[in-house]
């Protein structure tokens, strides 16, 4: 559609759940002695994301995200920390991949998998904002890859 402004209206993009996560961020901060950490940024707006995970017995025992960004990126990070916590690393990667496909319009969102992050569904229609939503999620993917590489090398 051309020149219609926000397609489904503001409420479609900014669902209440999103604004709620934005105003009350869960899982914010850093982890002392994290198993792996990454720092990513969105070249479009300069937004940054620090992501730390603590891995215990192959599970994400703790996960925290820090950095500034727009409501979408902050809410996405907040939702991620909730839904990824306690997942096995493989499960977490599947989760990220599912979310990525949803954001690119290549999969229907599954609430059982995504939890609150299902509310981000409307973002898929806004290509520029997709990067915001994905920033922390792809950071988790990179973080797990880093972790696996380090532990593989370490022994």
């Amino acid at each position, binding site marked *: 559609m051309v*020149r*219609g*402004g*926000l397609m489904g*209206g*503001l409420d479609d*993009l900014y669902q209440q759940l999103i*604004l709620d996560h*934005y*105003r009350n961020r869960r899982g914010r901060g850093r982890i002392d002695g994290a198993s792996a950490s990454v720092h990513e940024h969105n070249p*479009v*707006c*300069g*937004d*940054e994301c620090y992501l730390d995970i603590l891995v215990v017995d192959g599970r994400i025992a703790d996960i925290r995200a820090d950095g*500034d*960004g*727009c*409501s*979408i*990126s*902050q809410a996405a990070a907040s939702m991620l920390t909730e839904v990824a916590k306690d997942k096995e690393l493989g499960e977490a990667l599947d989760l990220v991949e599912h979310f990525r496909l949803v954001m690119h319009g290549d999969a229907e969102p599954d609430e059982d998998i995504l939890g609150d992050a299902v509310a981000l569904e409307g973002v898929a229609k*806004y290509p*520029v*904002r997709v990067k*915001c939503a994905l920033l922390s999620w792809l950071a988790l993917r990179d973080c797990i890859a880093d972790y696996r590489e380090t532990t593989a090398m370490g022994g």
Partner: protein
Amino acid sequence: MGNSTHTALDATALRAEFPLLATPRPDGGAVHYLDSAATSQKPQRVLDAMDAYYRETNANVHRGVYEMAAEATERFEAGRDAVARLVNHPREATVFTKNATEAINLVAWAWGVRELREGDEIVVSMMEHHSNTVPWQIVAGITGATVRFCPVTPGGEIDMDALRGMVGGRTRMVAVVHVSNTLGTINPVEEIVAMAHEAGALTMVDATQSVPHMPVDATAIGSDFLAFTGHKMCGPTGIGVLAAAPGRLEAMEPFLGGGEMISDVTTEGSTWNDIPWKFEAGTPPIAEAVGLGEAVRFMEEIGPERIRAHEKVVAQSMLDALDEVPGLTIYGPRDVERRGASFSFSLDGVHPHDIGQFLDSKGVCVRAGHHCTKPLLRSMGVQSTARASAYLYTTDDDVIALRDALVECREWFGAA
């Protein structure tokens, strides 16, 4: 439309000539396009001129003996005449590129790669667009030269004392923006050019944000190189301009090689065409030059002084309107004599992306991001800003819509 500088420009009437602005949005509201620093809208006559070129006389230029090719060449070169006239520059030293960015890179590569040495310095300001920063960094990387950044004052102006301290015997090039796309600041480019020339350095003035908005006299500025871009001055995408000192252009070895820019090609080597064609390799942006020529005639009929006068009025309205929005911080000068009508701002508690998205739902188009000035934003301690930028078609309506949407936006995101 008269050309008297006494009558103010009638922006509301002008909008009728811009199809995108004249067509209401599906919900019936007007389009409040406040992103002209990114690209301007195009008057119908510019689109018509390009269309007529393609329908009536489309042919490759310069080499055809048949009538249609001669006519194509004439329309193309008339575009150059118009652009040269607008900035008071000799036509033979007015080179068409694909955008302002290529114009700057042309100099960085053609001159810089061949002439720069380790120890040489290129001085740029901290408020340069990436297009006037990265080419110099790239060429410095190849040659071993150094790029130095002159700081910007808290008021958003080039720190002239610092600049005087930086420009010296090692300086080979001073590259500065005429009007900042992020802050709106109008820089004293004549003074900077004189300072650089005194030190024996060349000068590049990025006039991308000045030429569309005010009278610019390239001869009076006196820089070795001056760059601007078609799509921000009512013209099409795909064309930019390098206005260079003629002697400088004669002396320079060519940049891109290919058709059109040669005099002779042999297996032993080649010789070059006269300027400006020596720097225009391959099929040039023909329809684009025709369109840009028409855009210039449109601007000339209105008169660059009147455009500037109008934008000063709009800038003052913008300042007043933005001041009414709680929690809003404007970056850059507040004196409309020292700035254009581009305003970067922050809104407490609302991220620029969210501002941009919310405003869009009200029909207000603004940009959110770093505006290709990351070193500047970092030096100001912000990651991104929202930016509203005006042009000759901007009305009070647009300014009021911006203000009202910003007030609502703040409430909506719960920042109030």
